[in-house]
C-alpha cells in the first residue's frame, strides 16, 4: 500500500491534512520495543490521535498464500486533536470528523482507543469540538487573550502524520509567515496528512491555533501550513459549551467504548494484507452482541471478515476446511459472525450497502474465502 493516500482538497491550492485513505500499516502488529527516551512537551501530552471510519470498500488482492482474496478496506479518517479541558473536551479540524460513522481517540503512548463524541461543528470555519470518555489531566488551555504574534516568530505543531501505528505525536516547527485575508495564519512549516486538527503553539507552549491545511504539493506548493487562529478556537469552544446539546452531558454508554476499540482494531489490522490478531477476538465477539445500528453491524462484519482472511493467510491455507483444531473453529466463528451481522444489517438498515458494499458479498448464497481461478 502506498503511503499517504489522498487528502481532502479544501481550498484552491491548499489541501486538508486528514488521511482520507488507508495509511501504510506494518505487516504485523508490533508492541513498542521500549519507552521513548525523548520527553514529551506538555502540548504533545495533550495531543491525541483521532481515528474514524466513514465506510469501506472491498478490494481483491493476491495473498501471501498465493490465493486470491477479497478483503474490506476501510474508508478511514485519521487526524489529530488537542485536549483543551480536563473534562475531555478536544478541539480538532472539522474535516477530520465530517462524514464519519465511528470516531475514537487514542492518547499518546497508548493503544487503547477512547470513546469520542462530536459535540459541536463550526459551520463557518474548519473547527470542531469533541468530547472523549476520559478525564484528561494533561491539557493545553485556551488563552483568554490572543498572544502577540510577530512575523518570523517560531511556531511548533504536534500531530500524528502518516503512520497509523506510531504511538507518539510528531513535532514539527516553522516560522509564522503572514496573516491571510481569510483569517487563517500561514506558517512556513512542513505538515503532512494526519496533522489536521493538531495544536500549533508558540515558544512558550501557548496555543496559537489549530492546523487545518497545507499547501498542495501537487500544485508545487511545499512547506506551507495554515492554522485556524486562536480567536476562532475560543469562539467554537464557547459555542460548544453554550449549546453542545445532550452530547455534552449525557452519560457514556459501555457500547461507545467498545466500538471505539473496534474502530481502532479494524484500522490497525486492515490493509491490503489484513493481520490476524487473536487479542482482538473478544472485542469482536462483544461487538457482535452489542451492534444495534446498521453501521455498527457492518463494522463488526467487516472486521470479522478481515480477521477471517487474516487467519487463513497466517496459516497459508485457501479455506477454513484446510485448517484444523482451534484455528478451524476460530475461522468458522469469524466467518459466521461476519455473515450473520451483514445479514442483519441488510434486513434492518438496507441503506448501509451503499457505503459498506460487503453487505452484498456476505449475503450471497455462497460466500467464499478465496477468489477462484477463472
Amino acid at each position: 500500500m502506498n503511503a499517504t493516500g489522498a487528502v481532502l482538497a479544501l481550498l484552491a491550492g491548499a489541501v486538508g491534512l486528514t488521511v482520507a485513505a488507508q495509511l501504510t500499516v506494518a505487516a504485523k502488529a508490533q508492541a513498542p520495543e521500549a519507552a521513548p527516551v525523548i520527553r514529551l512537551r506538555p502540548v504533545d501530552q495533550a495531543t491525541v490521535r483521532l481515528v474514524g471510519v466513514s465506510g469501506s470498500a472491498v478490494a481483491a488482492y493476491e495473498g501471501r498464500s498465493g490465493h486470491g482474496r477479497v478483503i474490506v478496506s476501510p474508508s478511514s479518517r485519521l487526524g489529530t486533536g488537542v485536549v483543551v479541558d480536563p473534562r475531555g473536551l478536544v478541539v480538532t479540524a472539522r474535516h477530520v470528523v465530517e462524514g464519519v460513522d465511528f470516531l475514537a481517540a487514542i492518547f499518546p503512548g497508548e493503544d487503547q482507543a477512547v470513546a469520542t463524541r462530536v459535540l459541536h461543528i463550526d459551520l463557518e470555519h474548519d473547527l470542531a469540538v469533541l468530547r472523549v470518555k476520559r478525564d484528561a489531566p494533561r491539557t493545553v488551555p485556551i488563552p483568554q487573550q490572543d498572544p502577540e504574534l510577530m512575523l518570523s516568530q517560531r511556531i511548533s505543531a504536534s500531530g500524528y502524520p502518516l503512520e497509523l501505528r506510531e504511538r507518539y505525536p510528531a513535532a514539527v516547527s516553522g516560522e509564522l509567515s503572514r496573516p491571510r485575508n481569510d483569517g487563517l495564519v500561514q506558517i512556513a512549516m512542513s505538515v503532512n496528512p494526519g496533522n489536521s486538527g493538531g495544536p500549533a503553539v508558540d515558544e512558550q507552549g501557548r496555543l496559537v491555533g489549530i492546523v487545518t491545511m497545507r499547501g498542495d504539493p501537487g500544485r508545487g506548493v511545499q512547506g506551507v501550513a495554515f492554522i485556524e487562529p486562536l480567536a476562532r478556537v475560543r469562539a467554537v469552544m464557547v459555542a460548544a459549551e453554550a449549546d453542545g446539546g445532550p452530547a455534552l452531558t449525557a452519560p457514556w454508554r459501555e457500547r461507545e467504548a467498545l466500538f471505539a476499540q473496534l474502530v481502532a482494531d479494524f484500522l490497525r489490522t486492515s490493509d491490503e494484507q489484513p493481520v490476524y490478531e487473536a487479542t482482538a477476538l473478544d472485542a469482536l465477539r462483544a461487538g457482535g452482541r452489542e451492534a444495534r445500528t446498521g453501521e455498527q453491524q457492518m463494522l463488526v462484519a467487516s472486521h470479522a471478515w478481515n480477521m477471517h482472511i487474516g487467519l487463513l493467510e497466517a496459516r497459508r491455507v485457501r479455506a477454513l476446511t484446510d485448517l484444523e483444531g482451534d484455528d478451524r473453529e476460530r475461522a468458522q466463528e469469524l466467518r459466521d459472525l461476519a455473515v450473520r451481522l451483514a445479514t442483519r444489517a441488510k434486513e434492518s438498515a438496507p441503506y448501509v450497502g451503499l457505503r459498506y458494499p460487503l453487505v452484498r458479498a456476505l449475503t450471497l448464497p455462497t460466500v467464499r474465502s478465496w477468489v477462484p481461478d477463472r
Partner: protein
Amino acid sequence: MPDESRDQLVRPSPSRAASASASSANASAAPAAATASSGGSVRIPGWSSYRPDIGGFRCLVPGRARPFRERGHVVDGARFVKVGMAGVSGPAFYEASVQVIEGGIVGDVVDLRDREDVVRQRSFAALETRTTEVYRSPEGYQVIDAIVDGTLPTGEAYVVYHRSYRGRARLVRLVAAMPVAAASNAVQARRARSFFGSLELDEDDAASPAGDGTPGPWRWYQPLEAGFAARFPGTPRYVSTTFRHEEQERRVHRYEIEGPELRLWVRAYDFGERMGASVVELARQAPREEGFTVVEDRAWTRQGYGGRAMVFRKGDVRRLLRLLVTPTHVFEIFAEGPDEDAEFDELAFGFANSFRTLR
C-alpha cells in the same frame, strides 16, 4: 431538451406518475434519442415487445432483432450474465439488454464502461465519447446517459446513444446507433425516441421509488437523487423544485408523508458548495414567517456534520426541525404534529434520528 422526458422513460406506474412528472431534472442536455414521446403506449410499426427471460424490463425491439446471451467473469470470480435483443431497423441498429452478477465476493453490478467493447464489436473503426451524464432518478435508479461518436471503417460517421439504468442488482441498457444523417432524420429520430420511451423497468430492482405520501408501515427510504436515507411511516411523495442561489439554479428535493394530524418531510438542498451559518438563520426564519415561535434551538450533529436541532410552536401545533449541513448539501428534517403529545414525540424523534446522509 425538456427535463420531464427523462422521467417518462422509466414509465412509472400510475401511482408514481405524479411524482415523476413533478420532478424537473438536471440542466445539461440528454441524448436526443432519449427524448420520449409523451404519454400513451409506444408503438412502432413492425416492432414487437421484448422481455428477457431473466426479467428486468420490457421494451420494443425491431421485428428482425435476434436474441443474444453472453457470459463472462469479473475481477472477483463472479460471473456476469447479459441477456438481450439486438436488431436493425432501417439504417439504425438497436440493442436492449439486462446484466446481472452471479456469485463472486464483491458482487457489484457491471460497470457501463466494462461493456463498451460490445459497441466496438459492431465494426466501428473508432469511437469517441461525446458526453456522459450520470444522475439519479426519483424512481430509484442511477441513470447513465452517453453519446458516442463512432466511425465505420468506410469512414461513415455514426451517433451511438446509450442509456443505462442501474438498480440494486441489475444494469438495464439501451443502445441505438445510426448514421449521423439518420440521426437528424425526423422518422429515425422519432423511432429512436419511441425505442427509449418504450422501456418499462421491473420495479423490484429500484432502490427507492417514490409513493403517494400517505401513512403506512415504517420502512427505510433511500432516494438516490438526494443522497440520504431515513425511516418513513409510509412511502413519501416526491417533489422536486429549483431555487436560485448566487445566480445559479439549484435543486431542492422534498419527500413527504402527510396524515390527518401529522406531517413528516425531508428537504434536500443541492447547493453544490459548502454553506455557512447563514443557512441556519434561513431555517429559523421560514417557520417564523408562518407564525411559529422558537421553543428550542441548539447544536446538532450527525455523522460528523454540523447543524441545529430546533422546535417551533404555533397554537397547539409543534414542529421539529433538524438541520444538517454537509459540504455540498443542506438537509432539513421536519416533523409536525400535535403539541404535548407523547406519541407524536416518539414518532418524530424516531424519524429524525433515523436520518443518515449518504453523501
